[in-house]
Structure formats: structure tokens, C-alpha cells
């Protein structure tokens, strides 16, 4: 139980609460005025009726929603499978790149070459090469399903980015940590696993979530191979009706998808800050 507050402290708290209430009200009012001004300015433009009919038609949105949602389901499945593959492959490559000792030079060189190649090549080109090139080999047992091949291409490209994020995290852990771990009798592998990696992963979580949001949207690019994702489903509807509303529907769905990731990143960042301040 805290000791009872003095009269002065109670007075101070009351004053602060009043100020906070006032700030909230001012923010609310200014937001409403701002929104009203934007809305009024927009609807007063001479082209607004055409824009409203072409981009914000409720009936077109309702008509396109089932197809766009069906496409989004493909996006989500590809996203989950790809993200798992990316994290595993990215971590392996980052680990290979941080190996020390002259013996491992070829491994390091290979890992560096991998990152240079797949971080440099445009995703669309990789999709075309893998999605249309691999089936052309006509090998037995190699999948021809475009969703599978597209996911493979996404994993190859994104793993190169994520490997660099992981490597930055690993290298950001101060060498004294490794030295301390070794002096406690841990082997090199143990000190990496128990001391370096936990700190590294925690530090790079925000940039990893950033890449995750980027991946959410890039998953749709597998549609160039013939799969119908949310954006492609919207495009088909647009082509049928010449009304652009389905694009807006797909865009909003992707925003909704990205918001939880953003909040998770915020919470994680706040937790890391709290822990660092705690000691």
C-alpha cells in the first residue's frame, strides 16, 4: 500500500487529469475539423462524381468482394508457407556468413554470393525464371503448380534480405558477450545459441516484421504466373466492369492485414525499450 497522498499531490494529480482531458478534446476537435475540410475539399472538385462512381461504388465493391476474398485466401496461404521458409533459410545463410576461420571461406563466399544475387535480382524476374523456366525442364517430380513455384521464388528472394537482417543482429551483439560466454566454459556453438542469437533476434524483430509486411503485399506477384490472388481477382473484376472499385477493396483488405503486424511491432519495440531502461 502506498502512503496516503498529501494535499499537494492530490491537487497536482487533479490538475494533470484536467489537462489531459483538455488535450484529448482539442485533438478530437481538430481531427474532426481537418477531416471535414478534406472531405469538403474533395467532394467539391469538378471530377468528384466520376471519381466516386469509378473508385467508391458500393455495389461494385459488394459484387467484387467474394472474388477478392477468395484471392486473398491464396495470398494468406502463400504468406504463411513463404514466411516459415524465409526465416529458416535466412537464419541459415546469416549463420554461414558469420562463420569464422579460413576453412569456411568457400561457405562464406557462397553465402555472400547468394545474398548478392537474390537481393539484387528483381522479384518479378525471379518469378518468371522459376515459374516458367523450371517446368520447361520437364523433370519428373518437380512441381509445376504456379503457387508452389511462386512461393519458392519468394523464399529465395526474401531469404536474402532476411539473412542480412539476421546478420546485422548477430554482429550487433558486443564481442565481450561472446568472450564472457566462452570464459564461462560454453563452446562456440553453445555461446552462439544461448547468448548471441537470443539477443540478436530480439533486436531485429522490428525490421523482420517490416519485411513481413512487405512480403504480405509481394505474395500477390505470383499472379504473373497465372495464380489468381486478391489483386488479380480485383483486376479481373475491373476489366469486366471498367470500374476501379475492386482495386480499392483489395487495397483496403491489404491494409487491414498489415495493421495487426504494425501493432505487434509497436508492442515489441515498447517492451524492448522498457527492458533496456530497467537495467
Amino acid at each position: 500500500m502506498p502512503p496516503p497522498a498529501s494535499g499537494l499531490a492530490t491537487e497536482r494529480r487533479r490538475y494533470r487529469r484536467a489537462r489531459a482531458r483538455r488535450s484529448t478534446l482539442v485533438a478530437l476537435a481538430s481531427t474532426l475539423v481537418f477531416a471535414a475540410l478534406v472531405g469538403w475539399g474533395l467532394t467539391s472538385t469538378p471530377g468528384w462524381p466520376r471519381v466516386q462512381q469509378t473508385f467508391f461504388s458500393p455495389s461494385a465493391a459488394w459484387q467484387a468482394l467474394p472474388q477478392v476474398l477468395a484471392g486473398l485466401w491464396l495470398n494468406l496461404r502463400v504468406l504463411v508457407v513463404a514466411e516459415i521458409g524465409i526465416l529458416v533459410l535466412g537464419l541459415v545463410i546469416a549463420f554461414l556468413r558469420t562463420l569464422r576461420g579460413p576453412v569456411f571461406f568457400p561457405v562464406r563466399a557462397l553465402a555472400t554470393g547468394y545474398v548478392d544475387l537474390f537481393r539484387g535480382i528483381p522479384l518479378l524476374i525471379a518469378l518468371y525464371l522459376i515459374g516458367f523456366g523450371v517446368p520447361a525442364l520437364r523433370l519428373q517430380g518437380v512441381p509445376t503448380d504456379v503457387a508452389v513455384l511462386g512461393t519458392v521464388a519468394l523464399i529465395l528472394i526474401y531469404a536474402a534480405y532476411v539473412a542480412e537482417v539476421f546478420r546485422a543482429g548477430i554482429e550487433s551483439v558486443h564481442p565481450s558477450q561472446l568472450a564472457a560466454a566462452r570464459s564461462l566454459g560454453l563452446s562456440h556453438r553453445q555461446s552462439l545459441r544461448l547468448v548471441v542469437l537470443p539477443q540478436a533476434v530480439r533486436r531485429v524483430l522490428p525490421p523482420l516484421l517490416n519485411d513481413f509486411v512487405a512480403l504480405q503485399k509481394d505474395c500477390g506477384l505470383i499472379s504473373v504466373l497465372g495464380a489468381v490472388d486478391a489483386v488479380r481477382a480485383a483486376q479481373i473484376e475491373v476489366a469486366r466492369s471498367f470500374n476501379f472499385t475492386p482495386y480499392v477493396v483489395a487495397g483496403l483488405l491489404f491494409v487491414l492485414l498489415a495493421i495487426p503486424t504494425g501493432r505487434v511491432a509497436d508492442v515489441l519495440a515498447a517492451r524492448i525499450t522498457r527492458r533496456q531502461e530497467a537495467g
Partner: protein
Amino acid sequence: MREVTSFGLRRLLAPAVLAVVLAAGCAPAAPPPPPAPAAPSCPPGALPTLTPGTLTVGTDQPVYPPWYVDDDPTNGQGFESAVAYAVAESLGYPKDKVAWSRVPFNAAIQPGPKTYDINLTEFSITEERRNAVDFSTPYYDVKQAVVTLGTSPAANAAGLAELRNAKLGAQVGTTSYQAIVDQIKPATPPAVFNSNDDAKLALTNGQVDAIVVDLPTAFYITSAELDGGKIVGQLPLTGGTPEQFGIVLDKGSALTPCVSGVVDRLRTGGTLTALESQWLSSAGAAPELR
């Protein structure tokens, strides 16, 4: 009176508010031109075009035979290039007064100001699309055809029912895709490609069993592009109404009645038929699938 004043004030303030609230440089463009007069007056060579004295014709990039040849609309070769020059000529714009503008699909149908006066890119006329753009009277009646390879499981299909279990593909934004969905009703959803080139590649890779394209394109790619390519057959009409290509114009364009009048004259005069047999002659049979 009060309403008039407030409306005037609103009109007056709107640009200022926009400039303040959004950003500089976002001021509204000039108001759209007044609607076309009921009786078309089409002074030859002096229509209200984008650039006075010049007719700007839009088409996609790239464009394919037999509609255009060598991805060069200015050469007058290919059916749509020839039709465009015939229409321009009849409107009073000889060949040197025709400019071409390359317009991707989405740019051609967006609601803002257009970069072309007329657009010929195999646009099929539908009532729903009329909400967004103007169409001239049709210049070509088109049918859809199923194309495959001799080695494909779909090669010997004799009817729509036998195609139902095939993996089919089409180019995005085409009525070919709609034809698959509406008429063949396949068991697996069709694959959708950015272009017919990608669709052909997927076909030769065995990733799809057959693709659907318009009939003239089918004749062209089976004879000139696909090794062992084969037309399975053409799709029947839906609901008895033929699918027709029309020239696309901006919604409410003053040119629409003039262009429609010219297309009608070219049809009754036999020009369209002549151009069809010159550029779209079919070198083989395509049985109708039922």
C-alpha cells in the same frame, strides 16, 4: 438565392481549401466539356480533338498480330491499324494527321482525362462497361476459340463437357476469361496471365492444358507461333448476342456520334468486310463446340 450564394462560395473556396489541406498543385482541372449535341455535326478534319487538326489514336503496348503488325500501329498493317486509318480518313484526317498514343489497359479506361481521341485495342462492348467509357458502333463481331497443343490431353475434346476437367488459361482483362467462366465452367478455376505470350508459355510448359483467345488470334498463334498448336474449336455465343469490338472514346466524348457514323458507313460500304478478309482471313476450320 441563399442556395445560389452558398454554392458560389463553396465553388470559390473549394480550390483554396484543397490547396491548403492537401498539397500545392492539386487544384482541380478545368470542368469537363459540355455534353455532345443531339444532332452530330462533324466538320471534316476539324473535330474537337485533343490536339486540334490531329486525330490521336490510342492502343496498348505491345500489340499483337493479326490486329497490329510488328507492334507498330503506324504502319497501317493489321486489322485494327487499317480500320483506325480508314476511320480517320473518313473523319477528314489523312494518314499524316493521325498520331498514335500507347495506352495500357488501365490507363485507357480510367475516369480522368484521356490521352487519346479514339482507342482500338480489341475492346468488347458490354452494357456494364458503357458506364465508364463511350463505345462506337461495333467494327468486328468476334468469337472465342480454345487453343491447345496436339500433345495436350485437351486436344481431342469434341465438346464443352470434355473441356470441363481441363486446366484452362486466358489473358487478364479479356472476355476470353469470361468465356471460360461463363461457358466452359471448368472444375478448376482458370489460370490468368498478364499477356497471351505468358499464356502460350504456360501451355507449352504443360502448366495449362488449353488457352482461350479470340478466334483471329487463335488462327494466328496456331499457324505462326505455336509448334504443334491446334484449335480445339470455337465457343458458342452466350444468349444469342454476338460479342463485338467497339472503338473506345472518353465518356461523353463529342466525337462518339461522328465515329459511330463513320463506322456504320464503312460497314455498309463494304470497307470493313474487305479489311477483314485482308487481315483476318482464316486458314483452317474451327468447329463450334457445344
